[in-house]
């Protein structure tokens, strides 16, 4: 509840929720070595949403699994909330993952035998949080996403849009501070896909940091920053554009 505000944290000293420093990842060995990532630097602050775009095979998904501590980089450092992951024992790493990181998957991955609230509470329960406390946190997250009234429903009773909301509630529940999303809008039509991005961006404005991997420019455009990957390298990034006012021709008459 005491997360930093959505803005005002642009100062250099604000601690990054996620920081990649010179991260490289190679698979295989010479001569058949594959450089999935090559010297990637990325810093994502609380309240910020960064989209990672690139063609398939550019290293987007590798970047996400490394950021989520599911894989170790070949070289370079990964810091989550200022804590370096290198050399951290597996158990501690798993705990950090459960406590701090939320995932949104392409197909939402809700468990069919559990209600919406049970699904949303699951990460906390797995982390040993007592059930009533976990449920309360899940309900709070669902409330913020407008699906609290669906708490007792099962996934197959929910619409596609409601399922997305529950999946996002599960990703931000409790004290999750880093959201990692891989093509989070799945096969939804463009209006509903935009709605997923709106919800993720709103979650960021409440203080979480998000990295969203997508190949879709319309979805990436919801992010505060877009970085472009190709062949494992960062080849470009957008700067924070001016507000939308600059698009509209001023109404000179009147």
């Amino acid at each position: 509840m005491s997360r930093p505000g959505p803005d005002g944290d642009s100062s250099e000293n604000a601690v990054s929720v996620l920081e990649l420093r010179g991260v490289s990842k190679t698979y295989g060995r010479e001569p058949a070595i594959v450089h999935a990532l090559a010297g990637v630097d990325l810093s994502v602050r609380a309240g910020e949403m960064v989209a990672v775009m690139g063609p398939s095979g550019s290293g987007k998904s590798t970047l996400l699994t490394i950021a989520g501590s599911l894989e170790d980089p070949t070289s370079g450092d990964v810091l989550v909330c200022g804590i370096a992951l290198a050399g951290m024992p597996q158990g501690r790493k798993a705990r950090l993952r459960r406590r701090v990181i939320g995932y949104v998957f392409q197909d939402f991955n809700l468990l069919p035998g559990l209600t919406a609230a049970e699904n949303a509470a699951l990460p906390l329960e797995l982390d040993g949080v007592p059930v009533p406390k976990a449920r309360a946190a899940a309900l709070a997250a669902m409330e913020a996403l407008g699906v609290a009234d669906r708490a007792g429903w099962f996934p197959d009773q929910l619409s596609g849009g409601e399922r997305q909301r529950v999946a996002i509630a599960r990703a931000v529940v409790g004290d999750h501070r880093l959201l990692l999303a891989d093509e989070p809008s799945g096969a939804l039509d463009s209006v509903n896909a935009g709605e997923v991005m709106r919800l993720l961006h709103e979650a960021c404005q409440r203080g979480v940091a998000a990295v969203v991997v997508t190949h879709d420019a319309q979805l990436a455009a919801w992010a505060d920053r877009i970085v472009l990957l190709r062949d494992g390298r960062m080849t470009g990034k957008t700067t924070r554009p001016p507000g939308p006012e600059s698009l509209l021709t001023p109404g000179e008459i009147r």
Partner: protein
Amino acid sequence: MLLALLSQGPKYGLQLREEFEAGTGEVWPLNVGQVYRTLGRLERDGLAESDDTGQEGPQKRFRITPRGEQALAAWLRTPPDLTSPPRDELVMKVLVAARVPGTDTREVIQAHRVYLLELMQQWTRLKEGEARDDLSLALVVDSELFRLDAVIRWLDAAEVRLARAAAEPPRPASAPDPAPQLRRLGARR
């Protein structure tokens, strides 16, 4: 467009301008002179008529005629002319970049891609804010986002094509392409 507004009931010129702007998400400002010129034309063609109050200017109220209603219905269903591609400055630049010696076309394409993404981010901020409660604006913003998205996809495709062309040895320009059937016959051997 003005006929569409008049089809909802008689209106004054100034009112038409305001409603036009509100109805298009205020993306295309209209000056009042344009409104009156268009109304004059509509009246001349018998598509709209004004109250015969003898007054001029803003006091005049316009209404649609039955002929105007027919013309409106026909206009709505007439496809705009999209047959010939517009002369596109970006397409030109990429075509030219491929011919200027020492130009890194990838870098040229990337610069345009980043700029287009930034524009899309701005439109999306609009969608996130004002366009939430303004259906007309939301529709206009969507159309702009789809247009910019299409340009980015074209850049992606152009990049792949240019990379492929650079990797392949150039074919002799004079030799005409063999007919497709011949090529297929040849491949069987």
